[in-house]
């Protein structure tokens, strides 16, 4: 982490509200204050439906906050965040493009010659371990493989900020660990600023430099911010055995538990209108 450079993402009192039918307003996130320093890996953890994704969409410029400011490298964000790469929760690959075309597209739309784009795309597919699957269409790949292609698709553009929305959510436990290690390995190469949303506290601690906890929605707030004292480089499965890991997990969970119960109670009562 380098604090001499400007803060990569800074949300200042950002409030996000959605207009519902009948002039009602649903406040998803209230006065969120959050910063991600240059080269820092920040994980946001919170109960289901607390507006974690909303916060990420604000940082991406896909959503405008109702009040508060968003600054990217000290510049106020207008429109889409051009410095950010976004790995979505759901399937976001182009189903009609092969794996390699899916990765190359980020360069092609910038005007890179096709041959050069394909060559670099092949390089990225190799680094996510899918070198032999370049010609496959997304439906011929497993969930984990699709996430790898997605990662390559985002990273080939070399974004300064990486936004990730429960990217490994739908994967099985083993695949998640493998993907986590792959992510750390790739991230270690150039240490981009990362904002990583997850509902899995263990995953958050294992990956991040800082863990931010959100309260249950609606009007979710940021209620906690912990620094992770684990050394890098880390191995996801080994780091879970360490004493510091357990101590931190216990500490954060004591706060998070109540919010999870609240979030659960709400989601089982009122219809969840906005995720």
């Amino acid at each position, binding site marked *: 982490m380098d604090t001499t450079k400007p803060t990569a993402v800074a949300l200042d009192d950002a409030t996000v509200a959605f207009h519902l039918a009948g002039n009602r307003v649903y406040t998803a996130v209230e006065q969120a204050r959050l910063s991600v320093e240059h080269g820092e890996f920040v994980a946001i953890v919170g109960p289901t439906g607390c507006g974690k994704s909303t916060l990420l969409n604000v940082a*991406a410029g*896909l959503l405008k906050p109702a009040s508060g400011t968003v600054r990217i490298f000290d510049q106020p964000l207008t429109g*889409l965040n*051009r410095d*950010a*790469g*976004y790995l*979505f*929760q*759901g*399937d*976001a*690959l*182009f*189903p*009609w*493009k*092969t794996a390699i075309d899916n990765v190359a*597209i*980020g360069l092609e*739309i*910038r005007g890179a010659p096709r041959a050069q784009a394909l060559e670099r795309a092949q390089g990225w597919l190799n680094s996510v371990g899918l070198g032999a699957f370049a010609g496959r*269409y*997304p*439906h011929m790949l497993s969930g984990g493989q699709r996430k790898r292609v997605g990662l390559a*698709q*985002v990273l080939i*553009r070399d974004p300064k900020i990486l936004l990730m929305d429960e990217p490994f959510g739908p994967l099985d436990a083993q695949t998640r660990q493998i993907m986590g290690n792959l992510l750390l390995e790739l991230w270690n190469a150039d240490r981009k600023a990362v904002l990583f949303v997850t509902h899995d506290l263990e995953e958050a601690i294992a990956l991040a430099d800082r863990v931010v906890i959100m309260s249950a929605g609606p009007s979710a707030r940021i209620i906690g911010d912990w620094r992770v004292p684990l050394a890098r480089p880390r191995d996801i499965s080994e780091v879970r055995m360490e004493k510091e890991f357990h101590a931190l997990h216990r500490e954060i969970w004591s706060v998070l538990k109540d919010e999870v119960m609240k979030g659960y109670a709400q989601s089982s009562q009122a219809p969840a209108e906005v995720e």
Partner: protein
Amino acid sequence: MMSRPVLLLCQLLVGVVFFGLWQLFATVPIFGYTVLPPFFFSTPLDVFNRIVKWLVEGSIWRHLMITLTEASLAFVIGSLSGTLIGFWFARQQTIAAIFDPYVKMMNALPRVVLAPIFALWLGLGIWSKVALGVTLVFFVVFFNVYQGVKETNATLVDNARMLGMSERQLLRHVFWPSALSWMFSSLHTSVGFAVVGAVVGEYLGSAAGLGYLIQQAEGVFDVAGVFAGMIVLAIFVVAIDFVVTKVENRLLVWRPTAGERGT
């Protein structure tokens, strides 16, 4: 699922049994009573001979070519306009809202009633049949593409925008492929409707084509001719469908269940 040769054998068997029974009931009296009098039902043998005669004389090819030309033109014009207008409406919701009641009205209209109008406007040549086919094909493709583009996965669009696509690039890389894929998925239905449009048009008034052939035979109580025309038409449609399936499998190679998506 049974193996392919067994399946083919079973399919063949159904045909053989059907034509066998038909031949039997039409020629052999049962308790002194002919179940299928040949005057009304003809016999498979007569129908077969008729088809052979058409093939030998070569007269059938001209009619087939005319029907094929009409159906192809109707398909191309109908799908092209359906795709373009469906795409346009899906991207311009205001336009879609304005035209909505008229589109519904047009679609609810039984197309057969338009045939005399088209004959009046375009004459008895191929273009009145093409027009009839176009009105059928257009709506199938139009609704498919309209719905498909409107419901393009929002995550996909967000992803494309985050990857840095401009509005034009979004059209080219996201919405247009999506529109085309919906057009292709209605391929079987639209090709079928193109043939229906051509044959019905010919039947109602023309001087050539399969529909004309059937109509002529019907006019002189030539039942063998009617059935022969129907069978040629059926084989023609199966052949076209075979080609469409091949084309579809090629075009929709990226789709999980390419062959099963035709509506």
